[in-house]
């Protein structure tokens, strides 16, 4: 005969077992195992719903600055990895707000023009700058149609351990590669969700089961300057 207390204990133990593997599965499915390189089967991307993006909110920008150790200054020489943009259709008066950053193109012009191969695309589609090779020529900044890159003009101090940055090199949104590799979402996505807007959806565009792949299949979305055929990994909804 099982007492009520025994029954409750057993149920709690079972629930614990069921929960633990679930948590493990979630972590393993998202974080790449130690020693494994980024997979070419993955294509990281974002779907930004401009209808959910509020003009007076810049939580994504603040989160990016905090995560990556940017000053947040607005001088032309200050680094900015993500910025808020407002558009107005003059005929209809419709206003749209959206965040703009490195679009992580499949055919990135910044990589084409880089003379030292410092600008490169990782196997999983994230476009990065190898600052060990960057000579600061800024060709990539001129080549980028999205004005996504910044040049570090001044010496920097107290950089983040996971986000090395230095004077004389070009930098841009890394899609929070250090977080993505740990199975987390980019900082801007997390901040947007936290603010209740849920305007940015991040995930693997190549995985048909992923939320982002299902959504881009079902709703109309565009790539900015799709005419350039750079095939950006960042898509916009409601533009």
């Amino acid at each position, binding site marked *: 005969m099982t007492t009520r207390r025994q029954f409750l204990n057993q149920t709690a133990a079972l629930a614990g077992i069921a929960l633990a593997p679930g948590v493990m599965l979630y972590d393993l499915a998202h974080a790449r195992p130690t020693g494994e390189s980024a997979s070419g089967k993955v294509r990281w991307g974002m779907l930004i719903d401009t209808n959910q993006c509020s003009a007076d909110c810049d939580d994504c920008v603040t989160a990016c600055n905090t995560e990556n150790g940017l000053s947040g200054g607005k001088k032309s020489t200050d680094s900015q990895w993500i910025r808020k943009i407002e558009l107005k259709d003059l005929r209809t008066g419709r206003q749209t707000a959206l965040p703009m950053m490195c679009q992580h193109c499949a055919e990135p012009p910044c990589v084409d023009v880089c003379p030292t191969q410092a600008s490169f695309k990782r*196997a999983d589609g994230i476009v990065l700058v190898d600052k060990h090779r960057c000579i600061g020529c800024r060709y990539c900044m001129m080549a980028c149609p999205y004005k996504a890159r910044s040049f570090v003009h001044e010496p920097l101090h*107290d950089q983040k351990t996971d986000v090395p940055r230095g004077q004389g090199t070009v930098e841009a949104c890394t899609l929070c590669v250090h977080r993505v590799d740990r*199975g987390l979402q980019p900082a801007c996505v997390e901040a947007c969700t936290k603010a209740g807007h849920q305007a940015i959806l991040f995930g693997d565009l190549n995985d048909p089961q992923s939320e982002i792949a299902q959504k881009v299949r079902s709703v109309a979305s565009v790539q900015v300057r799709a005419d350039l055929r750079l095939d950006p990994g960042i898509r916009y909804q409601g533009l």
Partner: protein
Amino acid sequence: MKALLLTLLLFATPVWADGGGLSPKLDIGRGGKCVEDEATMRRLHPELIRHQRDETLRLGIRGGKHSLAECVECHASKKNGSVLGSRENFCQGCHEYAAVKPDCFECHSSKPRPAVTGAAK
């Protein structure tokens, strides 16, 4: 003359034996067992971290054992929490002695991760 030379030698020997007090006195921070033995690390640490940085950055291989961040994690001085700062600090002390300028820390952090974000999720 011989006596003079001998006397000189006698006085000189101890100076050579302890390196003349010239070798760097380093604050090794937390220290402990390193990822390679001491001789290998002394000779090859630039190659080891340079090799791993390319694999990590360009191929996305995480969690390798030759990580600059981990060097800093163990060897930051307990006094100023950094591997740089004075002749006693782990990286700066030895590099000054060898007259080699490391440019790692123009971009990379010379301090360990703050305790809160340091814990891997």
